[in-house]
């Protein structure tokens, strides 16, 4: 990642790739919420950063002024091809209605409550097998040895692609999301994903299976098969959105438990708290920020927004807003009132939220069952990724 120029005033010159923002954005949001509360920057184009729950959710619902046609937090700085392979991007996430509506309905049943239950036992086996691999060593990188390995394999299973390529998939997804300010890496990630799925589409056409990719190829809308670009975009979306995000939530939750022994003990001794605790960890360490594009000049909460400006949908900061959450900066495992928006708000609510919740719960259950006591390895650095998706990337922990 390239280094960023130092930030002087967060209100008027913020940078989400600033090292301080990535490591500890919470104090910055608190300050902005009290003094601003919608920050602006001209770095990487004119961009706004709301920090209050009320503003973020209002913008998420105002799809007329705030379009999803560009959802990348860090704009692509390389040269765009004249005829893009994906003219619609990654629908439904990068679409407004009507394209959003019908493409979303193609994906939702694959992530329904009922369907997600059928992925639970393979997820549990996967987590348990990963722990087998390091438990005897008394130490592990909870990010790269564990969290990072889980969602990519579940998503590969759903898409019907080879789990042996998990590390390759993870590399491409990180190129697209985490190293987005490096045009070479972004291009490498996008090309890797596209070339892979173009080849997979050809294979599936000849030999369809019962997986999501084959189902998309079988689907007809208004009597015609889906355009290849829609199939490719939706398949790439499932992989991109299903990997970095959930892995980050699992990693952040393990970081919290490694650094907060009272919470760790409670979750071990009181398994009943798990379902509320999963929501609370999602609230406190929401990984995902999405973007919107302003469609027409509009004044929002006193800010003069111009057509083409970018909005960073700061769901993580909304979830720390003390106007909505008591003791917003504390993790309260059994928090009873928790309207968190870790999965967004409005029509773009994360289509994979049921899956992400299941993966997070099962990953924590399996870890805490086998490794009830653990803490950060003394003197070893924890590193974080940020920007579009925030979570630990190196998380060395030790256990007796």
């Amino acid at each position, binding site marked *: 990642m390239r280094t960023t120029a130092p930030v002087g005033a967060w209100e008027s010159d913020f940078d989400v790739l600033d090292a301080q923002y990535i490591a500890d954005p919470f104090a910055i949001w608190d300050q902005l919420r009290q003094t601003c509360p919608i920050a602006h920057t001209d770095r990487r184009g004119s961009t706004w950063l709301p920090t209050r729950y009320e503003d973020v*959710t209002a913008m998420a619902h105002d799809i007329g002024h705030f379009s999803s046609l560009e959802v990348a937090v860090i704009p692509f700085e390389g040269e765009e091809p004249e005829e893009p392979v994906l003219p619609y991007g990654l629908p439904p996430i990068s679409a407004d209605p009507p394209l959003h509506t019908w493409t979303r*309905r193609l994906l*939702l*049943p694959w992530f*329904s*409550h*009922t*369907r997600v239950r059928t992925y639970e036992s393979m997820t549990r086996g996967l987590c348990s097998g990963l722990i087998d691999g390091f438990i005897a060593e008394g130490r592990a990188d909870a990010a790269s040895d564990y969290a990072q390995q889980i969602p990519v394999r579940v998503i590969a299973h759903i898409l019907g692609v080879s789990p042996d390529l998990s590390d390759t998939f993870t590399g491409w997804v990180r190129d697209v999301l985490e190293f987005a300010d490096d045009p070479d890496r972004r291009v490498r990630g996008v090309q890797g994903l596209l070339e892979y799925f173009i080849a997979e589409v050809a294979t599936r056409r000849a030999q369809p299976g019962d997986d999501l990719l084959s189902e998309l190829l079988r689907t007809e809308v208004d009597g015609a098969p889906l355009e290849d670009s829609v199939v490719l975009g939706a398949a790439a979306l499932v992989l991109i959105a299903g990997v970095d995000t959930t892995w980050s939530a699992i990693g952040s939750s393990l970081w919290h438990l490694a650094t907060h022994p009272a919470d760790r003990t409670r979750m071990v001794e009181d398994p009943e708290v798990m*379902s509320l605790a999963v*929501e609370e960890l999602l609230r406190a360490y929401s990984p995902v920020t999405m973007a919107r594009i302003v469609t027409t000049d509009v004044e929002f909460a006193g800010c003069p927004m111009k057509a083409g400006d970018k909005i960073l949908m700061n769901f993580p900061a909304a979830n720390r807003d003390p106007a909505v959450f008591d003791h917003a900066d504390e993790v309260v495992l059994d928090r*009873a*009132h*928790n*309207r*968190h*928006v870790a*999965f967004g*708000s*409005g*029509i773009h*609510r994360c289509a994979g*939220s*049921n899956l992400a*919740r299941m993966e997070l719960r099962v990953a924590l259950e399996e870890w805490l069952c086998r490794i009830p006591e653990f803490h950060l390895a003394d003197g070893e650095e924890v590193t974080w990724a940020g920007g579009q998706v925030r979570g630990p990337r190196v998380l060395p922990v030790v256990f007796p």
Partner: protein
Amino acid sequence: MDPDKCQGHARCYGLVPELFEIDDYGQSTAVGDGSVPPELEERARLAIANCPEFAVEEIPPS
């Protein structure tokens, strides 16, 4: 339960599956006519307090 506000977060169903049904697209609806037996009132209020779309409301019996 206001189906026009529901965006499929499934928090209500996760908290009180006795009171909500959910379809393959995530849409929640109240079971039956939406009335809540006394023993489920407390959990029903949890469903209200956890819906990010403010789609679940308490309507006192008339």
